[in-house]
């Protein structure tokens, strides 16, 4: 299975779509105090947001790039060449029919079929930084669920928004959360009232579609006592020649007894820096589950976390990462135990193809005087080619006698016997490889909603094409 690195070349145009879109509002390139004022004025935001953004901008400037532990690739990002705000300027559309034709076409290519819309509760399709399409199914709004763009929520529901905004992920959490806090636009806001179980998964599909344009969406989901909600986001991006930056902040708040599932299937083009901060706050007996699938991008750094704040809270991260040639998937999970009887589970599977590099980075923290906290971490890595690379860097701190944490990781490759067995039954080597990789992640993929697992399988097949030779 050892192959020379130069013989591995995946056609990176597969799956890339690009349409020209005329942007009506544009903050230009580079980031200064003026850029922030422009965003505030363009979005007609209140004064406290202006202060919040300016403060975040100062924090962003004061923090160094975290290259003492992270990849030096980060130094490639030229913050002066990035467009921080770009919007079509249109008010969010009420129905699908009103969505401009060319944008609709793009979404169709991305695979939101007509029929699917009937089942999806609402489609918050984010195009560039503003929601251009917003359709909340009657059933959901009848339940009292608020599902809107975070820009609208800021204006319409400041009571709910302000209470939790920036509370789970403070501005100073890291350099990129500070950047997002300074220039955020777009993203979703969801509020689920007490006891409401949202039957349909809520979904947002978005993509980056302007060269050198970073997307800085901000999502806040609040599940009130005893409620349940599932949120799905998926993204693909067109191929550009210069690096683009995606730096989102996602905050989840699960009030006592609530359940949130947040599902991401991501397939960025190989030039995107995807530096995302995602964290949930789980109150008493609440449950937060991140299901995260990372494919594509030049460098992804994403460590979904759960702060287990209330007794018996539960956090879970299920992560699949596929690092193709020239890509680095630096993913992982954070579990901060802050109350008795809290439990957390992390299952991570990564696949490195060609010269791809997959990294697991984890943090588990159990402070003292907590009782009966448990953490389980499992990381499995699969290496496809001789020049593939995988790393695992967990950090586990446990204090006190009442708690237990266990971590296990393994690295393996696809056995020659398996491939031989499948080839002998008429599959090509590539097909056999693809099947084996799908088998490796199958137990995790089964936890995804059906349409996502189908898409995921297709993405893996796509990535595995040409990986053998």
């Amino acid at each position, binding site marked *: *299975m*050892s192959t020379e690195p130069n013989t591995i070349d995946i056609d990176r145009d597969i799956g890339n779509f690009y349409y020209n879109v005329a942007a009506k509002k544009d903050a230009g390139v580079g980031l200064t105090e003026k850029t922030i004022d422009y965003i505030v004025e363009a979005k007609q935001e209140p004064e406290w947001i202006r202060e919040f953004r300016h403060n975040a901008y100062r924090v962003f400037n004061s923090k160094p790039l975290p290259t*003492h*532990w992270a990849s030096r690739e980060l130094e490639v990002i030229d913050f002066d060449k990035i467009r921080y705000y770009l919007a079509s300027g249109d008010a969010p559309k009420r129905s699908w029919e009103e969505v401009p034709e060319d944008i609709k076409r793009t979404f169709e290519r991305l695979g939101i079929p007509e029929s699917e819309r009937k089942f999806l509760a609402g489609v918050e399709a984010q195009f560039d930084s503003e929601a251009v399409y917003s359709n909340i199914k009657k059933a959901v709004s009848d339940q009292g669920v608020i599902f809107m763009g975070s820009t609208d929520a800021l204006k319409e529901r400041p009571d709910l928004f302000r209470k939790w905004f920036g509370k789970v992920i403070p501005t100073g959490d890291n350099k990129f959360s500070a950047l997002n806090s300074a220039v955020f636009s777009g993203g979703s806001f969801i509020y689920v009232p007490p006891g409401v179980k949202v039957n349909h998964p809520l979904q947002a599909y978005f993509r980056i579609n302007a060269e050198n344009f970073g997307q800085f969406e901000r999502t806040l989901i609040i599940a009130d006592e005893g409620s349940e909600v599932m949120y799905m986001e998926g993204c693909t991006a067109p191929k550009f020649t210069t690096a683009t930056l995606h730096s989102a902040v996602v905050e989840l708040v699960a009030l006592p007894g609530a359940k949130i599932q947040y599902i991401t299937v991501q397939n960025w083009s190989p030039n995107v820096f995807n530096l995302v901060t995602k964290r949930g706050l789980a109150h008493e007996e609440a449950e937060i589950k991140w299901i995260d699938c990372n494919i594509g991008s030049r460098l992804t750094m994403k460590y979904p976390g759960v702060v287990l704040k209330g007794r018996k809270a539960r956090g879970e991260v299920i992560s699949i990462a596929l690092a193709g040639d020239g890509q680095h998937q630096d993913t992982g999970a954070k579990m901060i135990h802050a109350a008795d009887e809290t439990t957390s589970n992390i299952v991570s599977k990564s696949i490195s193809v060609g010269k791809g590099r997959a990294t697991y980075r984890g943090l588990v923290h*159990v402070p*003292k*005087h907590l009782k009966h906290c448990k953490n389980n971490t499992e990381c499995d*890595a699969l*290496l*496809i*080619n*001789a*020049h*593939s*690379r*995988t*790393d*695992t*860097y*967990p*950090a*586990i*701190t*446990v*204090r*006190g*006698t*009442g*708690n*237990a*944490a*266990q*971590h*296990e*990781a*393994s*690295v*393996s*490759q696809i056995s020659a016997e398996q491939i031989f067995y499948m080839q002998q039954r008429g599959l090509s080597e590539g097909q056999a490889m693809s099947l084996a990789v799908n088998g490796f992640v199958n137990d995790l993929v089964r936890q995804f909603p059906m349409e996502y697992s189908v898409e995921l399988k297709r993405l893996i097949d796509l990535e595995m094409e040409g990986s053998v030779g």
Partner: protein
Amino acid sequence: MGDRSNLGDILTSMTTVTDEPFSRTQPAALEMPDWFSEQQSEAQKVFENEPFPARTDEMWRFSSIKNVAINQFPVAGEFSADVQSIVDARKYRKPAGRIIFANESLISAELYDRKLAEAGVIFTTLAEALVSHSELLREHFMAQTVRLGSKKFAALHATRVKAGVLLRVPRGVEVTAPFEVFHLCEGDEASVFPHTLVIAEDLSRVTVLEHFVSADPEHRGFACGVNDLVLKPGAKLNYVSVQEWSPKFVSIQVNSTVVEKDANALNLAVNFGGKYSRLESMSRMVGGGARSDMLALSIARGEQEFDQRTLQDHLHPDTTSDLLYKNALYDKARTIFSGLIKVEPGAHRTDAYQKVRNLLLSDDAEANSMPGLEILADDVRCTHGATSGQVEPEELFYLKSRGIADLPAKQLIVRGFLNEVVDRVQHPELTEYLHREIASR
């Protein structure tokens, strides 16, 4: 057990041990070859230029770095405690040889079997080796790059080293009895720089037992030691260190093991002492069939902090490494384990294992684990595991139901937990010795 012909010889010679030292020469001052002086002045520059560890330094993550922000390293003075009683309390019954340093001064250097000397075994002090085995030293003395964070301190060691041992076992020579080395320290604020270099030539077999002991538990001090183990093709080495510095000591130990083709290294660090003890242990598998077992056990009490950093570096196909570190934590103790399995490009069919287990016996104890993997080759089997937990109530119940009181039952469980590490040492007598040492804690 095998048929090692020397075993009988050594055991016979043991029974007729003479107290007469075989070799006991110590030059008044270190007579230094030019290469050594040059290396020292280079090291001086490195020491001066390297910054102290910073909080953001990944190699020092979780470490209480205030402990190592030391600028003064006063020379240890006269050793006033009774060397003999300290040695007698912990010495191995039948060693192949014994070298004792007290406050960096040589007390005795003995090789008990003349046959070993005749076979070409060198067991001597660094001072003497600089004179008589300069070329051998030049090749191996601190030849490995320090990669786990203590570059500054290793350089300091190089400039200050005085009390050191060179052990070389020639091709094909098999010695079963351990070579024993003592480093004793006495006096408040003393600093010591113990050095050990073991060269196991092709197909040789050797065991080393090293002790680090403070005479007075109230004395503060600083130890900065380096030990290099070199295994030539087919060699087999057991290296055991027992660290009993005072609970007020700051200790940094930098270990590197180079394992060539088909050689087999086993390194066990037994840690009892120190306020802050850092152990950096690196194994490099450079030849096919090389295997390294990296073991450590620590009993951490009071406010002790054990900071362990390891690297299993696989540079050649078909190599194996197996790491097991166990910590028993009492009171407000802290442990840090940061381990990395690194499989370099092309090191296919690597089989590497790494496991750290923390047993938390107090509510204020804290265990930090950072088991890491960096794999740059495929066709490998690499696994690591880290667990942190407490005494299982079922196990305790089982023992109590058989009439064992709570405290002894817990002690038994802890002992059993730690003995699993000791049982991996391929030397039944040494294992037995270590069991007794642990039981007495």
